[in-house]
């Protein structure tokens, strides 16, 4: 009995190690990326969000500082909207290899990342990684029950780093409930869902220009422990 348990446990550990094998090269690949600033353009294709294309400048500093500067109002998706290579740290996730496959002639793996400490975050990620180039091609995020966000990422080469030039987000989220008195709903009426696409394009990257910590202390800065 103990032998079987040991065998199962070692299988599990082996599977984890195998899964981490795909994350480690990505971490190494971007270890020299200290910061970047980039022009962002956001296009919304959501029925319930009528907004023109919005533009801003996005600043990122490793490991998790982000700031947006815009002369006008700017909406930016909380999940999946910008690139943070140090998001998926070994110690914070339990990683499971879901499948290996070939997509568009490239070797690809799918990993499921479940946070080890659900007190900090309960977001589950499914990453699609191009193992030939060590790139995260797609991120599926389930920030909470009933919410699902899928980000497909296209990359370009900037100062020796492959960074996103376009992120296509697909949202499928439940509509929020009214805050005060609940609205009467007809019996059997299902809650509405918000579905749509957000297209984020990035241009004019400036990489490792030495952004100071001070600029991220101002209002409109965000530290995101779990947003890519």
């Amino acid at each position, binding site marked *: 009995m103990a032998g079987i348990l040991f065998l199962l446990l070692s299988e599990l550990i082996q599977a984890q190690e195998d899964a981490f094998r795909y994350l480690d090269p990505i971490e190494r690949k971007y270890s020299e990326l200290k910061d970047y600033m980039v022009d962002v353009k956001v296009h919304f294709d959501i029925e*319930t*969000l*009528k*907004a*023109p294309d919005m533009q*801003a400048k996005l600043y990122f500093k490793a490991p998790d500082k982000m700031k*947006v*500067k*815009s*002369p*006008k*109002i*700017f*909406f*930016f*998706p*909380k*999940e999946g*909207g910008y690139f943070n290579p140090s998001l998926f740290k070994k110690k914070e996730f339990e990683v499971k290899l879901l499948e290996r496959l070939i997509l568009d002639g490239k070797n690809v793996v799918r990993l499921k990342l479940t946070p080890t400490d659900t007190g900090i975050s309960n977001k589950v990620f499914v990453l699609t990684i191009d193992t030939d180039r060590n790139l995260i091609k797609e991120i599926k995020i389930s920030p909470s029950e009933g*919410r699902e*966000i899928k980000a497909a990422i296209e990359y370009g080469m900037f100062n020796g780093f492959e960074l996103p030039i376009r992120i296509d987000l697909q*949202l499928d*989220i439940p*509509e*929020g*409930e*009214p*805050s005060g008195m609940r*609205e*009467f*709903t*007809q019996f059997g009426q299902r809650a509405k869902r*918000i579905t749509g696409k957000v297209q984020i394009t990035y241009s004019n990257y400036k990489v490792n220009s030495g952004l100071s910590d001070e600029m991220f202390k101002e209002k*409109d800065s*965000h530290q995101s422990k779990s947003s890519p």
Partner: protein
Amino acid sequence: MKLFWLETYKTFSRWRTYISFGFIALIVILTEVVMKLSADEILYRMMRSFQKDFLIFGNVLNGWFITAFIMNSLHIHIPFLITLVAGDIVSSEATSGTMRLLLIRPPSRSKIITAKYLTALFYTTGLVIFLALICISFGLILFGSGDLIIHYETKFRIVFIPEAEVPVRMLLAFAAAIWSMTVVASLAFLFSTLAENSIGPIIGTMAVVIVFLVIGNFPFDFFRLVSPCLFTTYMIFWQRFFDDPIPWQEIGRSAMILGFHSVGLFLMAFTVFNRKDIKS
């Protein structure tokens, strides 16, 4: 025209006419100061369903946003302020015993009632314009300008209006608000011609408005059927000017229905006043 200016002079000579203007100034200034002091909390409350999925940067809580917010909050209270004058404009003559004196003078009854009605409309227009001016000017001073974000209740429904388009949309929205309030003024005016005192028309008008609003907002199938027959359903058509795209057909239909109500109510008041027996 002379009669109209005379009526207007009479109306604006009474101190009670200015209660509404004072009330609006007080509420708007108080609201805007409080909103300035607790801007973050207000923004969070208003946008929380949206903030779950989006980060919002920039001056969302600007003067235009505040104006739209106040318009939304006060559209039930403004009718009451309108009835204070429109409901009093004819009945006060009976209360003060000047009705007979007024009607034995050379101008015809038709001219007198038309002049009084136009004065009620003038007051209504003035009140809404005053609301617009104080909301926008104070709002822009306190909160600055910017794009307008219209967030529908606490749902995930957002309309973004670029700053350049906002003044025109605001102008149209306030014009529509004046048009809506004209119906309330016409109703109060009709009641005013029927009553001998001012309290009845004021309470009567407000009772009709409140009952219609309640019926029109009950989410039951029966009330949903009744709702299109109530003028209060169309009174918020000014909000459609903040939609994207602007539903012109719906706006035109609402404006027409409200216009018919105003004309109908005035014609009824006109008939009642012309047949009024002042001998007994």
